[in-house]
């Protein structure tokens, strides 16, 4: 799908001699791949440093406590106990040589305290400073390296951050850059982690997942990725898309459900289908979306309604019906696909933007309500993702969209899918009500 000719050219010999800046080829996840391609520097005196080091070792990686001769594949600095400017200065001392030694597609992951829990003004300032620091590291990082920050609540244990640390260190987070994700005490009752041969693989084993809009593009990638990680996928799309939906369902070993999600009886039909066929639902992915672009000055009610009905109203109705049913139990996850446009606004897309911004509001309002049931609700907000739709854009528009982010390229549908796979794990109960951008740290809306 990624037909980025400029990136390919920039990696060739001629481009090198001409001094054309090189567009990095991002490391992406493949089953059996090690968590990291080189040693990880784990530093900091917070309560997670030890467990992060253990996690890297468990995955077969090497942990170092200072930068040596060679490069490091990851730098994790646990600053959850940082409260003073002196602590911040110590962080600089660790990070300065580390970012210099960072390997291509390297990872910088900071763990910091929550500013809202800070015990004093200086502590709050330090906590907030990490936010700006990580965004800057992301902008300065080269060769496909990323930097992200986990803001961890004081009461959260190492188990709460485990799945997030794995995600942000791995190649699965290739296009997630400059993000700040809050991790709290996991919702619901404590879950026994599933017994896995390899801890990074099959983390969705046996989970029943519904993906709407699964016939093509990002939805198809989500279905593929969830199935690869062991989920039993129910691929949903409008009846007219049935032919490609069959292909997705059969290659994932899943089930195809032809359903117009805007139909009056769609929520009831989905509930009845899941009740009969699976008896439960572990992961609901609201991905289906449409565009009907017009400037607001020319926007008629039909365009407005059709987009809002598919992109937002159907999500609200289906979520409500599923929450009313007994299908979503402790450990269930809801992930909704928002958009960078929903954060930044976009000319000619008032209807689309309203729906995608609305999703963010929905997620934030719903998260605390369903948390006591052990359910989380999160959103992902893709930036410029290379799909059949972007392939038909005018060249200038497409090139602009691709380059104005820190990784200087468009993301792939699988990048969105991997992020949903992380949020969809039972082990990700500490992440709730979050909006995670999958945008390569796009400047739009940042």
């Amino acid at each position: 799908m990624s037909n980025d000719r400029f990136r390919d050219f920039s990696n060739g010999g001629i481009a090198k001699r001409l001094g054309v800046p090189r567009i990095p080829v991002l490391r992406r996840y493949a089953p059996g791949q090690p968590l990291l391609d080189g040693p990880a520097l784990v530093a900091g005196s917070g309560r997670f440093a030890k467990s992060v080091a253990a996690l890297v070792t468990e995955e077969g990686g090497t942990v170092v406590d200072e930068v040596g001769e060679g490069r490091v594949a990851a730098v994790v600095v646990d600053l959850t106990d940082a409260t003073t400017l002196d602590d911040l200065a110590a962080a600089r001392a660790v990070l300065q040589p580390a970012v210099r030694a960072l390997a291509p597609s390297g990872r910088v992951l900071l763990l910091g305290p929550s500013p809202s829990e800070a015990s004093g003004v200086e502590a709050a300032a330090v906590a907030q400073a990490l936010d700006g620091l990580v965004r800057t590291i992301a902008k300065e990082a080269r060769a496909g390296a990323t930097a992200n920050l986990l803001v961890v609540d004081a009461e959260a244990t190492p188990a709460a951050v485990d799945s997030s640390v794995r995600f942000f260190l791995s190649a699965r987070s290739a296009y997630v850059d400059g993000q700040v994700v809050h991790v709290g005490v996991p919702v619901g009752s404590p879950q026994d982690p599933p017994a896995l041969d390899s801890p990074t693989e099959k983390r969705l084993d046996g989970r029943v997942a519904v993906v709407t809009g699964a016939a093509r593009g990002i939805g198809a990638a989500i279905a593929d990725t969830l199935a690869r990680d062991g989920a039993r996928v129910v691929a949903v799309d409008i009846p007219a898309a049935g032919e490609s939906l069959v292909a997705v369902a059969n290659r994932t070993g899943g089930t195809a459900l032809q359903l117009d999600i805007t139909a009056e009886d769609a929520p009831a039909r989905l509930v009845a289908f899941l009740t009969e066929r699976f008896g439960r639902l572990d992961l609901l992915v609201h991905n289906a979306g449409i565009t009907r672009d017009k400037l607001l000055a020319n926007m008629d009610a039909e365009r407005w309604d059709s987009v809002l009905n598919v992109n937002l109203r159907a999500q609200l109705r289906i979520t409500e019906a599923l929450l009313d049913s007994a299908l979503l139990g402790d450990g269930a996850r809801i992930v909704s696909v928002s958009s960078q446009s929903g954060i930044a606004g976009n000319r000619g897309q008032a209807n689309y933007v309203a729906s995608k911004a609305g999703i963010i509001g929905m997620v934030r309002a719903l998260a605390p309500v369903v948390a006591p049931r052990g359910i989380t609700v999160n959103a992902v907000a893709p930036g410029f993702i290379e799909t059949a739709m972007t392939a038909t854009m005018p060249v200038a528009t497409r090139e602009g969209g691709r380059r104005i982010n820190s990784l200087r390229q468009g993301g792939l549908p699988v990048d969105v899918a991997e992020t949903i796979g992380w949020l969809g794990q039972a082990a990700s109960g500490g992440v709730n009500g979050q909006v995670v951008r999958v945008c390569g740290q796009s400047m739009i809306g940042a």
Partner: protein
Amino acid sequence: MRKAAVIGGNRIPFARANGKYARASNLDMLTTTLDGLVARFGLADERLGEVVAGAVLKHSRDFNLTREAVLGSRLAPSTPAYDIQQACGTGLEATIAVANKIALGQIESGVAGGVDTASDAPIAVNEDLRKVLVALNGARTLQQRLKLLGKLRPGQIVPEIPQNSEPRTGLSMGEHAAITAREWGVSREAQDELAALSHQHLAAAYDRGFFDDLVTPYLGLTRDDNLRPDSTVEKLARLTPVFGKGDGATMTAGNSTPLTDGAALTLLGSDEWAAAHNLPVLARFVDAETAAVDYVHGRDGLLTAPVYAVPRLLERNGLTLQDFDFYEIHEAFASTVLATLAAWEDPGFAKERLGLDAPLGSIDRSRLNVAGSSLAAGHPFAATGGRIVSTLAKLLHEKGSGRGLISICAAGGQGVVAILEAAA
């Protein structure tokens, strides 16, 4: 004996011949339809008891059509399959075969149906040429070969094209049906009315999402392209008759089925198998009967065998014609359906031809082909049985009770009929 459960079905939209599916083969359509069924019921890599299907117009290379479709599908390659062929009765006869094996406990699950293309039809080598070529293949010496090559004539280049006519009468099916229509005095208006209803019923069923879990789009087609949702008796009345002769001719392109391409399959299983796979039981396959008539020398019409099959089926099951909530009478021609109903209502016919004291009587016409039938959907010969079985099973499931009667006429003076009942 247990009754086989009808679990669901899948078909591709039916396309008028030489249209959207002009370049699709029977194997393409059957494999696609099977894959759609696999996706709908989550059967990837599953080994089923058997897949039984067939085609009426069939290339000689498709001698193992259904097995090839299985091998090309996402079903486990360890799923056995075989072909059958009984003209337009193929799809329903395949269903009977699978349902009987399930009832006997020989298999726990199976798929039945059929496919046909009138576009990608087989064209055979001229019969004279074929004889020479066969002999040439068997010749041992150069001398023999040269002698045979000398028998080649320019006229042998003319191929054999399949004919839509009965080999023993030389009449087309439409001409046969026109004779029956005249015998029973089936009016043009009644035929057009039935045809318009078929279109309206099918369109309404699509509009309410009835086919969302019965049909999977194919090659850009999302609905049967013979369907005219705005069809009316008035519009149909404008068409010129194409079958029959003179002023009494009543059969037009509007009240006859067009040549069509398509495929349809039904998933059947035991209750236990369905439960183990968390699959619904829409209906149960109760019983079936076939009949044949001597349309060559006797008094019966080519497409009237169901008239004989149904009374025998009813008697064996202790039922009357009025004991049904749905009637699915295949609309080969509107006149066929109306002549069949007229025959069941006729006391003289009952006594003399069916050997019954009283006629079967009339049916509640509001229960006939309520989700449309072949006049609207089209009629890819072997696919019609699968379309009807799946449609009726879903109708019964929606109603939650009752039973339905299927009646399908077939070339060669044959008829296949069956009873389905709602799953309790």
